[in-house]
């Protein structure tokens, strides 16, 4: 077992929110076609409120902190927040479009000891990237910022979200990342808007493209292993949980609301009414979520993909039942193995004809 696995196992056993994702604003200077957020800024937490949240997280044992948005650098107090988080010895990753990272910002990020800067880059072609972000010149500014971060020795990664607009460009983006000397993450995830609007899901890549991605060595590593035949489901798997959301991971919106994960819009409480500790330990929603083991999933517990499926309970929740299957992850399992999931077979639709292209994949570099 790796040290990270050991940490997660221990945090799960102790109920410690080892990881937190904090959006400090939903405002953004880009208007990406696939974005799941609205860009409302009214009612955002003040600097002092955010510092208080960070202090509370630290006291509860949080170690990994993702600061994101919206575009976090739109907040004038962004660096004050980052500095405070680092003074609390939090391991901070910053998710940004980077267009506001000039020389002084890049130097400051390095000086603060930010663990990594994660940047969305949609294409190797400026016109495609700018069409997706709807911000003219954004590709150039993002690329320049990546260069500045690299020059300062900041660990930087590019996330390439796959969608119809940039179809077939992932390999070229990966090559660009290699030229820039930064790591590369491919993400075929288009999620519904948090307000329930699913219209953006039509932007997702097709089932065929998804299958191609999963069978491309430079994206997934060992294809044989990644697309391995089904494995048996043992007691450990059935006793386990789908993911860390609500177990060791919390999401906090710019409006002080707590959720299990950024992709799991199940309200758990407001930090303007309760402390984080109270919400984390006493929220009925979180406790209900934690009571659900894989064996309790009405469809997925009997599925041949159970042992390795990356079922997202948040996406299942957005489909109406967090104990149910996430059809996007069913598609992903199908794309990997060619074997329909239990939910697909039950629906009498073993092969997705018109994929909405929404799947969740993580850790593919």
């Amino acid at each position, binding site marked *: 077992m790796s*040290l*990270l696995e*050991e*940490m997660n196992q*221990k*945090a799960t056993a*102790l109920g*410690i929110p*080892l990881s937190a994702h904090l959006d400090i604003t939903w405002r953004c200077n880009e208007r990406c076609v696939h974005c799941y957020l609205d860009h409302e800024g009214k009612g955002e937490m003040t600097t002092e409120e955010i510092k208080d949240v960070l202090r509370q997280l*630290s006291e509860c*044992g*949080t*170690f990994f902190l993702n600061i994101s948005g919206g575009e976090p650098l739109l907040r004038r107090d962004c660096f004050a927040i980052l500095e405070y988080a*680092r*003074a609390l*010895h*939090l*391991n*901070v990753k910053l998710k940004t479009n980077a267009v506001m990272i000039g020389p002084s910002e890049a130097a400051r990020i390095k000086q603060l*000891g930010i*663990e990594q800067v994660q940047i969305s880059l949609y294409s190797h072609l400026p016109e495609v990237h700018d069409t997706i972000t709807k911000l003219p010149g954004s590709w150039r500014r993002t690329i320049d910022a990546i260069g500045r971060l690299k020059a300062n020795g900041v*660990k930087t990664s590019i996330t390439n979200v796959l969608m119809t607009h940039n179809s077939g460009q992932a390999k070229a983006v990966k090559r660009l990342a290699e030229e820039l000397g930064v790591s590369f993450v491919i993400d075929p995830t288009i999620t519904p808007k948090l307000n329930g609007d699913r219209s953006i899901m039509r932007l997702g890549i097709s089932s065929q493209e998804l299958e191609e991605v999963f069978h491309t060595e430079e994206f997934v590593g060992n294809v044989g292993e990644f697309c391995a035949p089904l494995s048996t489901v043992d007691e450990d798997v059935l006793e386990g949980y789908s993911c860390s959301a609500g177990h060791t991971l919390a999401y906090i919106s710019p409006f002080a609301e707590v959720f299990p994960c950024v992709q799991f819009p199940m309200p758990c409480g407001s930090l303007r009414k309760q402390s984080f500790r109270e919400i984390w330990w006493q929220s009925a929603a979180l406790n209900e979520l934690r009571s659900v083991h894989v064996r309790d999933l009405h469809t997925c517990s009997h599925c041949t993909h159970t042992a390795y499926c990356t079922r997202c309970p948040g996406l299942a929740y957005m489909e109406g039942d967090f104990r149910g299957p996430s059809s996007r992850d069913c598609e992903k399992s199908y794309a990997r193995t060619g074997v329909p999931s239990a939910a697909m077979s039950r629906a009498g639709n073993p092969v997705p004809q018109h994929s909405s292209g929404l799947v969740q994949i993580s850790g593919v570099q």
Partner: protein
Amino acid sequence: MDATETYIAQSPDIAATTLGDDTIIMSTRDSMIFMLNSVGTVIWKAADGATPLSRIVHENVCEEFDIAEDRALTDAKEFVGQLAQHGILSVSTAPVSAKEAS
């Protein structure tokens, strides 16, 4: 002041948290993660730059964990050396403030 004494101070260039009796520390210099057991955690928490390592070992390790002083000090020096290599602790022969350690 004992010229052979060692003083240790926590570096600000780390990320850290407590997980039960253990402490997780990551060096922001090289992103190496360490999980300190309860003995290591005691030494880490006492690393204020002002208390000699020998006193930390005597007061916090030997008494709390019932370990022989010579053995404990030898192990503690090795442990401190490893963390210092990754920039997690600064080591000095004279007391330092936390500010100086940074």
